[in-house]
């Protein structure tokens, strides 16, 4: 059996673990769907532009973000429960374990956010389904990047759960605030200095939300450079997260704990 096959088996196992946490699924789905519902019923009538159309991609991207960040919780649990030692005894390299977690995180986030998208499509027709299908692999890379961030946070939080959740909240606030997920770039320009505007426009979450707005719901033709930007801003997160998690596993092997 090849290393690749073992990585896929490990990834598949972790992927299924995400969907087995039923309370988490219920909380996430209810939050995301209630967000859509509230916006549909209230904000839509208060604003002079179709905020619902603007907001639905935001909810999908937020679903991707939150589901990818759950990778960190699973890593943290695996470290706390000693499952990580079990993984390190299996016929798979330490690098393979890291890759499997990132793949699983990316895939779980993609599947979860796609389910939100499918629900949204019931009330908000997409203009270009084909564009959406093209976007999905890039969203997968983005989700792996976010899973990388989560892996790094879990490694840094060591055995303290509260630290992990605090770090996660900080990252969430920073990445979502400094993005165009919830408000257009024009609003950002009004309130933030130029260098932060640049950060916001290069934030991979902004890129993902904008891509979905333009290419899925408006139906503009896909601009390749836009997709390349998603890759370029996501891959560093994947690499840094992967290396940090690898370092954490090495630390466990040397010190016996984090």
């Amino acid at each position: 059996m090849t290393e690749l096959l073992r990585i896929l088996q490990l990834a598949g196992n972790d992927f299924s673990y995400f969907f087995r946490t039923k309370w988490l699924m219920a909380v996430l789905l209810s939050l995301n769907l209630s967000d859509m519902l509230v916006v549909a019923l209230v904000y839509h009538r208060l604003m002079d532009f179709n905020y619902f159309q603007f907001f639905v991609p935001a909810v999908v991207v937020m679903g991707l973000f939150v589901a990818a960040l759950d990778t960190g919780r699973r890593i943290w649990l695996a470290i706390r429960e000693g499952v990580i030692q079990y993984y390190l005894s299996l016929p798979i390299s330490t690098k393979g374990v890291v890759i499997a977690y990132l793949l699983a995180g990316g895939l779980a986030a993609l599947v979860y956010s796609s389910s939100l998208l499918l629900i949204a499509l019931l009330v908000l027709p997409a203009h270009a389904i084909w564009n959406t299908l093209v976007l999905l692999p890039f969203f997968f890379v983005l989700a792996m990047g976010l899973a990388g961030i989560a892996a790094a946070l879990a490694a840094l939080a060591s055995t303290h759960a509260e630290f992990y959740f605090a770090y996660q909240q900080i990252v969430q606030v920073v990445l979502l605030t400094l993005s165009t997920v919830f408000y257009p770039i024009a609003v950002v320009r009004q309130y933030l200095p130029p260098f932060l505007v640049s950060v916001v426009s290069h934030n991979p979450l902004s890129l993902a939300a904008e891509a979905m707005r333009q290419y899925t719901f408006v139906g503009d033709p896909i601009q390749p450079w836009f997709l390349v930007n998603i890759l370029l801003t996501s891959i560093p997160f994947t690499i840094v997260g992967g290396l940090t998690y690898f370092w954490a596993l090495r630390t466990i092997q040397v010190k016996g704990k984090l």
Partner: protein
Amino acid sequence: MYAVETQNLIKRYGKTHALKGLDFTVNPKEIMVLLGPNGSGKTTLLLILATILKPTSGTAKVMGLDVAKQPTKIRQILGISFQEARGFWRHKPAEILHFHAAICGVPKSERGAKIEEIMKGLELWEARNKLFMHLSGGQTKRLEVSKLLIQRPRFAIFDEPSSQVDLRGKRKIWGEIHKLRDEGSTILVATNEVREAEYLADKVTVLDQGKSVVCDTVRNLKDKIAGGDVVELLLEPGPNNTEELREELSMIEGTVNLVVAGENQYRAHVSMAEAWVPKMTSLCYERKARLLSVRVTEPSLDDVFLHFTGKVLETTTNA
């Protein structure tokens, strides 16, 4: 070639020395039992051999492969059953075993039948629909052992394989470990349960404070204790049962100590009772002293541990 060999193996956790220059070997296809109290370095040694921990210095080899340099290759031939069961909280036992079997390369066509057979054998079948987090301590332990019984690795490591398991379950687990050895696996078992060690061991290594104190078969270890066997004699009252006879008994080769334990009763501490008793019966026959009963008690591994380390071995099942 040894199946397992360590040379001057050192493992430190900060200022704590878990292993202090351990030299240790295991022959292929034998069950080596590591006996030692908590903190003696047993689990650390197992985790190093399983490539989960890296040694601070020294070398450790499994089937000729270096644990520090070739961990992934070693992982392809070994399996470990942890002291505390490692499972996925929201998976069912059969799912955990399917995952383990798949990643360890058990052919898909054999998995289902093997898993069912092992689960039934270890009385886990009834719990097949429970989530791991709802299993009892004994059930999680059986599940942990089941992983290796399905995998059947060339080198199997069991860390306290029957702790938290009831007596019947212990017997089953021990029987399965013997079967695994008989099929050609090399097995390393860490325990602080004397009965488990006596039942399983082809050889025992006594570990204390990160060092190997002694290594031999159970029989030889017991024989190494001078005066370890206790022989209690009850003689028929009579004129030949004299002080002279007592002195002659105490002169038999192998007698370490002989005391009067009561009227017509003696207690002798001897080395190798199996050689001492025939000599004693001959002597009594010659002196026309009639033996009413002979009771031989051999030393336990507790006594062995005490003899070689000067300490009492903890024998709590859950330690």
